[in-house]
């Protein structure tokens, strides 16, 4: 068990010159300030299909962190090096609503960092089947524009964003198209008349990011803002539902021992499997409620 606690200590803060610094002393008990254990997440709320003019959307609330993701499917030309695949484009907007530091261009750096991380975790063959997004090789394919909007910042952004992206991709429905070929050889794309005739994406292997923050001698999952301020180094582990790691990234100015990196990876895989299982259950449950379910949206 580990207790991470706020300590205002007489002599030990001398090495940190910043004003609002709090140092936590971790002992061997497993009790954080809000009573959670080191591997417990805060209570999360997920709702899909909240934005009507997107192909798929999701909103995730993890404690005080609020993320909205919208996916729009548009037709375009495939990339040169991958002619028979569609692709995903990520854009992260850190809104000034989240925290005053994001005013003006303050949130751009964080936005690019998150977007680059999302590109990296999806940058492998297994995560999402891009060949299903191809309409006709070298000519037409579906491009999924994934837009992430940070509504409120309450710690643990990467986790919440990856959960929201997975939920939004699950909710995405791409219209079915047929390519008709004329006698002259010119191709015409026909959209089906039925608006509910669409293909859904298989998000079984879409990874989720688990952030492990090192505080004292132990690491914690799902750090709040205060815990993040006390943690000098964190490890972002991107895990699929089967426990396969797709990406590993270290953030923070502190250093991490190779032993602790191994431990954190193991914790990340363990927690990741539980996270995927819970997410899948809730998405399935929401799907089963059907189109008549009560949508809470933003005014609930």
């Amino acid at each position, binding site marked *: 068990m580990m207790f991470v606690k706020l300590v205002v200590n*007489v002599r030990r803060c001398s090495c940190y010159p910043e*004003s609002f610094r709090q140092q936590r002393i971790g002992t061997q008990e497993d009790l*954080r300030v809000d009573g959670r254990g080191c591997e417990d*997440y805060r209570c999360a709320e997920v709702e899909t299909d909240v934005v009507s003019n997107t192909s798929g959307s999701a909103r995730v609330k993890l404690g005080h962190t609020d993320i909205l993701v919208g996916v729009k499917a548009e037709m375009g030309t495939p990339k040169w090096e991958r002619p028979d695949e569609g692709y995903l484009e990520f854009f992260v907007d850190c809104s000034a609503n989240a925290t005053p530091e994001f005013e003006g261009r303050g949130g751009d750096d964080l936005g690019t960092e998150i977007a680059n991380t999302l590109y990296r975790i999806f940058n492998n063959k297994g995560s999402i089947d891009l060949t299903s997004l191809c309409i006709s090789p070298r000519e037409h394919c579906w491009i999924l524009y994934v837009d992430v909007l940070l509504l409120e910042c309450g710690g643990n952004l990467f986790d919440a964003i990856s959960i929201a992206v997975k939920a939004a991709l699950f909710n995405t429905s791409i219209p079915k198209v047929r390519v008709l070929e004329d006698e002259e050889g010119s191709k015409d794309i026909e959209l089906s008349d039925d608006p509910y005739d669409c293909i859904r994406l298989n998000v079984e292997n879409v990874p989720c990011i688990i952030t492990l923050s090192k505080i004292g001698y132990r690491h914690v999952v799902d750090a709040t803002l205060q815990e993040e301020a006390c943690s000098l180094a964190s490890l972002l582990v991107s895990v699929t539902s089967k426990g396969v790691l797709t990406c590993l990234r270290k953030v923070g100015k502190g250093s991490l021992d190779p032993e602790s990196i191994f431990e954190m990876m193991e914790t990340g895989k363990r*927690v990741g499997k539980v996270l995927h299982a819970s997410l899948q259950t809730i998405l399935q*449950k929401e799907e089963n409620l059907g189109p008549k379910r009560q949508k809470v949206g933003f005014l609930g």
Partner: protein
Amino acid sequence: MAMEIRLPVARQRLPESLDRDTQKHLVVPGDTITTDTGFMRGHGTYMGDEKLIASVAGSVERVNKLICVKALKTRYNGEVGDIVVGRITEVQQKRWKVETNSRLDSVLLLSSMNLPGGELRRRSAEDELAMRDFLREGDLISAEVQAVFSDGAVSLHTRSLKYGKLGQGVLVQVSPSLVKRQKTHFHDLPCGASVILGNNGFIWIYPTPEQREEEAGGFIANLEVPLSDREVISRLRNCIVSLVAQKMMLFDTSLLYCYEASLSHQIKDILKPEIMEEIVMETRQRLLEQEG
């Protein structure tokens, strides 16, 4: 290890029967308070179109002919005699700047601070150079408001043995309007922890010190806190957060009732929405019973 994901549920309005007999007149910015021109305008109101209109969101208070609107969520407005908990942000020449969730940083003058050992003498140049040894940036202190400057900035003092630097504990930041004004803001709760309910919305929960020996104005920092104390403190912290989420006033009795109501649940479960509502409902019931 647990991960609970759920579908959102629309919040329900509280049943009217639970409100007190005197209904509060709640307004939002732009609401008309009254069209009667005989009243004097107080804070939070302005005159427009022959009507008195509210400029902040809160409850209307009327004292004889004066109408003002007391905002629900606001910065702390200092008043002489208030107890505050603040964080040192800067160490300046003869003063410390303290952050107390108000519009301007509060000021703690070197002459308003107790020297260790309780000596009374004029502060010298050596004291000025040694300021950082007493309090440095990032330290938390409890102090009392001595005076309010004309621009609204607050001047603090720690001229009593019960004020001074705070040791180990947990800080919870809430809106200042939720802290009830009482005779004393330092409470030793029977559950095993002590709490300082700062008027500025900063609430400090710490383990009850065992013996009250000769206190040097709060410069001792106890390092080891046993697990049982930590659990009590975590539980109290979660209770405060749930009371604040349901917009209940914070004072020692409400805190104690909430703590007792939460004992049947695990500490980390208190923050779940349905358990939070249940606990606060029980607290409300007990407070109503106690009043009437």
